[in-house]
């Protein structure tokens, strides 16, 4: 790519360094990856240090500083994909294409690797080819896919059925029964005035659906009260928690309500601009979302005079690039500003100093849709569902060992048992609620309730049947956190890696009870000292599983006292390879390869 076309892309973004991530995405789309000279050219264009461009470019999984295949294939590596056979499919594909996982083929044609959960757990095993989502992979599809790649068939000519993403709406409540508001919720709120509208939200008791459960009205009020000449509304559609896919469905079917919710938030806090941060894995939703924005602009629901009044509001969409940590609101804001997604020091909180230093509310997709319900039917009606501390309904994305994975809407306060009955998870030994950072709950806890005061749930509900090995679940989650740690603070950067390494040691038969104690202690240190929620919850799966499913660990322990992680015989493998020896004298006594 020449400097002129890079300049054209930068110009389209007003040469604004705050748009660096979007610029890098656009440049990479043309070139396939980001060569060193390209980073130089972008730095020159934007008049920022080259190191700053490199810092952002090297942070995100979907930005490549080394060549990737013209077919860049990434298997979703959530535990639910693995339970559906993703690992075997990836091995099979690599065999058929003669490539090693994680390495580019010699002709530059194809690379095959894994990526964190792509949010298609209800129709896995899933994968991304050049950032396009493919669902329900199986051996015949993999064989056909390998053939397409070998014959260099363009993606557009692959069977459309492979790209089909089902919504799988299994149980509807008030939220999923909501028709596109198309301005009706706005009209209702405008009739109340900003203060009246805010008190209606307060009346509803609505709490954030992204996991933390902060009261929405309090967040909006704090932003409204903060001194500033500009305020922002951010919709967090960076749905990265493994096992969560309810926002995917909302973004697919309820986009009008999401944008109406953002506008409602803007009206309440006095913002003129909204930003929707769409995770890179959902890139296929970008064009349909832009189309809804265009419709809303044409209908006078966005723009300088919303509904013909004096309230101005418009919305831009930013696309992420593969970084789970950006789901954390301050990391998300950093990413919106074109920087690496490292969580900020808090306070100050975004409601006083958020996007570009201005007061900002960051709300989850589902929260914003719920505000439409409140505007249309009133706060009291909304609070009529759920429990006193957790009003309203909750979308639950069910995956794993059950008859009917998909989206279920329940009033908050629903028991785990009721969810399991609805989805046909009759043989469950455990469920992981709210993803790896949430809680692992065994059968004895199935009467507990999904609510902020009992078992909080941001959306994920992964079911594990009796045949499943929970140790492997824990190991999958540990590697997920190690991969997704932003690397800023010591305990998370190193601690998550140490936890993953210890689990690998146990998995390959070198574990001892000593290692289980080590694990427990590492979980405590990362929990107590980490900079943000990622690190402080990274030990949760290990801690929960050690407490409730200790035998899953113990049956792998080789010795009852200490065993070193260092394997002397394995360390000699390179020497054996170099000398071409495999005889018994080239091995330590008693060791086999």
């Amino acid at each position, binding site marked *: 790519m020449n400097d002129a076309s890079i300049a054209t892309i930068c110009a389209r973004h007003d040469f604004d360094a705050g748009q660096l991530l979007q610029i890098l995405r656009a440049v990479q789309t043309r070139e396939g990856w980001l060569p060193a000279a390209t980073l*130089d050219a972008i730095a020159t264009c934007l008049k920022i240090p*080259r*190191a700053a461009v490199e810092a952002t470019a*090297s942070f995100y999984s979907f930005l490549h500083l080394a060549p990737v295949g013209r077919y860049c294939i990434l298997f979703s590596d959530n535990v639910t994909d693995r339970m559906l056979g993703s690992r075997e499919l990836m091995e099979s594909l690599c065999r058929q294409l003669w490539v090693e996982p994680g390495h580019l083929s010699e002709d530059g044609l194809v690379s095959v690797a894994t990526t964190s959960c792509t949010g298609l757990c209800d129709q896995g095993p899933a994968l991304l080819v050049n950032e396009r989502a493919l669902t329900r992979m199986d051996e015949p599809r993999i064989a056909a896919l390998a053939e397409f790649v070998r014959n260099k068939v363009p993606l557009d000519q692959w069977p459309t059925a492979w790209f089909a993403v089902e919504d799988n709406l299994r149980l509807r409540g008030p939220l999923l029964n909501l028709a596109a508001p198309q301005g009706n919720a706005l009209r209702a709120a405008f009739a109340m005035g900003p203060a009246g509208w805010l008190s209606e939200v307060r009346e509803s008791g609505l709490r954030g659906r992204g996991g933390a459960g902060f009261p929405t009205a309090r967040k909006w009020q704090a932003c409204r009260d903060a001194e500033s000449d500009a305020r922002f509304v951010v919709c967090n559609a960076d749905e990265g928690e493994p096992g969560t896919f309810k926002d995917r469905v909302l973004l697919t079917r309820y986009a009008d309500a999401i944008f109406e919710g953002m506008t409602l938030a803007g009206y309440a806090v006095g913002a003129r601009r909204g930003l929707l941060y769409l995770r890179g894995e959902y890139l296929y939703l970008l064009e349909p979302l832009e189309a809804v924005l265009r419709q809303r602009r044409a209908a006078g629901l966005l723009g300088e005079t919303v509904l013909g009044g004096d309230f101005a509001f418009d919305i831009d969409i930013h696309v992420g690039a593969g970084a789970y940590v950006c789901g954390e609101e301050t990391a998300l804001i950093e990413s919106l500003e074109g920087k690496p997604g490292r969580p900020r*020091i808090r306070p100050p909180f975004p409601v006083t100093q958020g996007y570009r230093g201005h007061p900002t509310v960051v709300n989850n997709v589902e929260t914003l849709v719920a505000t439409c319900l409140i505007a249309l039917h009133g706060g009291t009606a909304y609070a009529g569902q759920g429990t006193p501390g957790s009003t309203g309904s909750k979308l639950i994305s069910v995956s794993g060992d059950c008859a009917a994975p998909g989206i279920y809407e329940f009033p908050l306060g629903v028991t785990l048992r009721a969810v399991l009955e609805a989805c046909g998870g009759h043989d469950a030994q455990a469920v992981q609620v709210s993803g790896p950072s949430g809680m692992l709950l065994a059968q004895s806890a199935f009467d507990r309730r999904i609510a902020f005061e009992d078992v909080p749930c941001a959306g994920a509900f992964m079911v594990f049947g009796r045949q499943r090995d929970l140790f492997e679940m824990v190991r999958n989650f540990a590697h997920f956190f*190690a991969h997704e740690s*932003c690397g800023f603070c010591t305990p998370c950067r190193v601690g998550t890696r*140490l936890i993953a390494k210890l689990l690998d040691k146990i998995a390959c038969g070198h574990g001892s009870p000593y290692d289980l104690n080590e694990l427990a202690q590492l979980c405590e240190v990362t929990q107590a000292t*980490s900079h943000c929620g990622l690190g402080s919850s990274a030990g949760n799966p290990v801690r929960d599983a050690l407490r409730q499913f200790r035998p899953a660990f113990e049956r792998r322990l080789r010795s009852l006292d200490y065993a070193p992680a260092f394997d002397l015989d394995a360390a000699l493998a390179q020497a054996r390879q170099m000398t071409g020896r495999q005889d018994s004298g080239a091995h330590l006594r008693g060791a086999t390869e």
Partner: protein
Amino acid sequence: MSPEPNFLLDGVVVPFVAGQSVLAAAQAAGHDIPHLCWHPDFAAHGSCKLCTVKADGRTASACTLAAQPGMVVENRTPELDALRRTLLQMLFVEGNHFCPSCEKSGACQLQATAYALGMLTPHFDHFYPDRPVDVSHPDVFLDFNRCILCALCVRASREVDGKSVFAIAGRGMETHLVVNSTTHRLADTDLALTDRAAHICPVGAILQKRVGFTVPIGRRPFDTPGDEGHA
């Protein structure tokens, strides 16, 4: 006039001014809270987590925690020092820190803090990362093996020198220091020996050339018993 506000640090009264962090107030009053990425001349970074304290029962980084009147802060308790030893061990095993052969020995804040907190072994298996050494610059060595990602050089270069010679790149365990040049060679940046960034490294990652062992072992800042941990 109302009396100066204060808080309790391990039972000792520490005065502070409004807006000051627990760490800044403690250091100003002559009380040490272990730290690596904090420096009095720069805004708090909050990444090393060595300064983790318990304030009114809750763990927090002392460098980013605003002091409040009447706050009860635990600092050098056995529990917190054990946490800190683990954090130090993490830093030691993730890089390549060979104190006996390091020019910074005796003047290294990582080493001194490890002594002060009684860290006797690295405890965890070493990662032995494969990291380069950059000797390209005429006046400065850059040894990535010893970098602890405190970002002090990043901040000094940007805020004092006005240059942005350094940045933190990558993610997770791949997080690493980079220099501002296409070649990734320090010689191709505009770093000068007179820069603040050339002298702020708390460990031996950024070292001045041709002055090695000018100050003999035994007469270095942390060599005097009892001086450990005080930069």
